[in-house]
């Protein structure tokens, strides 16, 4: 395996030394490009109290292309599908090589605070979010309790 680019080493160091509140990202012991991520549900959101596991992988040409991120914990959210894939512009066409793991994870946390049903990935969830927001939020709370809270 090729040596780890300086950029990844620096980012990893900073993530460990100055962690972002509510976000925890630790590189895998065997693969420094693979991160175990934990995002806690933001306060005043239907995901409050939940602890969400994600995986993040830095592809070979990172930072020229975006990191690959996916939710492992099940989540009821209009921009996250059943496989945990995330619909987020900065992971796609709005990716810039000057963005970092930290900024991406902050964007994901923000997405939990402010779901965007107009740019959906999980269509049935987005549909309900638009026609009956109260019920959708209830579902999101239920799923959070069921899948993201450890007893």
């Amino acid at each position, binding site marked *: 395996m090729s040596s780890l*680019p*300086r*950029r990844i080493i*620096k*980012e990893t160091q900073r993530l460990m030394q100055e962690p972002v509140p509510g976000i925890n990202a630790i590189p895998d012991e065997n693969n420094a490009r693979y991160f175990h991520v934990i995002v806690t549900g933001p306060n005043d959101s239907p995901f409050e109290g939940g602890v969400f596991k994600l995986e993040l992988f830095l592809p070979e*040409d990172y*930072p*020229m*292309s975006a990191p690959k991120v996916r939710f492992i914990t099940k989540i009821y959210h209009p921009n996250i599908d059943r496989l945990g894939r995330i619909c987020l512009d*900065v992971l796609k066409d*709005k990716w*810039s*090589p*000057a*963005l970092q793991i930290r*900024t991406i994870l902050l964007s994901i946390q923000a997405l939990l605070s402010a779901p965007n049903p107009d740019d959906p990935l999980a269509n049935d969830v987005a549909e309900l979010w638009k026609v009956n927001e109260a019920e959708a939020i209830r579902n999101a709370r239920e799923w959070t309790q069921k899948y993201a809270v450890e007893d």
Partner: protein
Amino acid sequence: MESDIEMELESDNDGEYDDDYDYYNTGEDCDVERLDPKRADPEYFEYDCLTVEDIEKLLNELVEKLNTILQITPSLAKVLLLEHQWNNTVVVEKYRQDANALLVTARIKPPTSSADAASTSAAAAAQLLKMGSSGYKAPPAVGGNANTPPYRSQMCPVCASSQLGDKFYSLACGHSFCKDCWTMYFETQIFQGISIQIGCMAPMCNVRVPEDLVLTLVTRPVMRDKYQQFAFKDYVKSHPELRFCPGPNCQIIVQSSEISAKRAICKVCRTGFCFKCGMDYHAPTDCQVIKKWLTKCADDSETANYISAHTKDCPKCHICIEKNGGCNHMQCFNCKHDFCWMCLGDWKTHGSEYYECSRYKDNPNIANESVHVQAREALKKYLHYYERWENHSKSLKLEQQTIERLRQRINTKVMNGSGTWIDWQYLFNAAGLLAKCRYTLQYTYPYAYYMEAGSRKNLFEYQQAQLEAEIENLSWKIERAETTDLGDLENQMDIAEKRRTTLLKDFFPVAV
């Protein structure tokens, strides 16, 4: 050749039938019409087939012209022209009105905040243009006013490495990155097919990377070639008067100042296409309608599949009949009954009076019917038009086969000393005309499908029916060519083409 002048006139707008066109300008065509082909022929279209080199020359001339007027680099001029349909006058006008706004909309400069008074002035923009730079700061040009002097080291936000300032490049937005990161970024973008749309590396920054910075930093010949190819494609696509020939592997670019849904035929690969939308030529239907129709046909292909039968039963003796010619006037080989393949009606009723076969009769009471009945009626209507559309498309192919068989028969005749090829040429002329007429007829069906009921639709369907009747007569006569009287055939050709041009003159909306 009888008339070289005529051949020349025709060869530009209708290359497909170049060599069999002497029947076209016969009859009542007068000299006035011949002088103004636009009025005589609703499909008349002037265009040129140009090579990549021709186009490069043409575009470079426009770029140079703008350089001279505005004193800017070719790289910048290209961006401005690309963003303004290659209209020099518009660019110059906008530049004189508000140079700063022009540079911002062309994404050469970042949007300026109102507080930033100096850069909102046109003078500042002019200065940027006249710096001789292309809107990017290369290290030697940094000079005294740069944030970081070239000798001090600086951290690149992408590779996180510290390097001397002279390794850094930035665009008009000021976002600065090291040479290696820019280069790798450009190559990644080029690999994805992006060229002149490459933007700054900074998040949320929309400023465009000028061509000369890319070509300064990217040195691998493969990548440079790719970049230039993609850029050329973008330039051509942004020029309203240019179209790539859609023919497979064809390099020709068609140019016309008349941007309408006329047919262009590539002089190299002979592919014909609608100049406006690039799809198969579709007169009298317009570009949006044909797109809607083709999408509908693709969506409903399963529903429509069952009707694409090659065999039907004779309506009189019920024997199974296979259709192997293009003509829809069928004669049962068993009982000799003449009938219509489309509607299975008696052919006699199709004749002169009123050809009802092409017309779909709407249920006048449809609004009061149940949703279920309405849905069934809608499907019935669609299938009526689809069946005819599909059938004429098949007839075109079958008639092509008829011509091939005819060609072989005539070849044998000529070999046996029965006449020369010239003697039989009229038959191929007739076949060419038949194909042309049937092609138009095929495209009248989507047109009629989307037409609103009313007197205009009545007129359209009347003309369509007339055209259809004459086409089937012509097809019938060509299939029996060797026994058909020459004068009779020529007369039939004349009538069919007249019906076709009449319909196009009335209904083909090509006004720009």
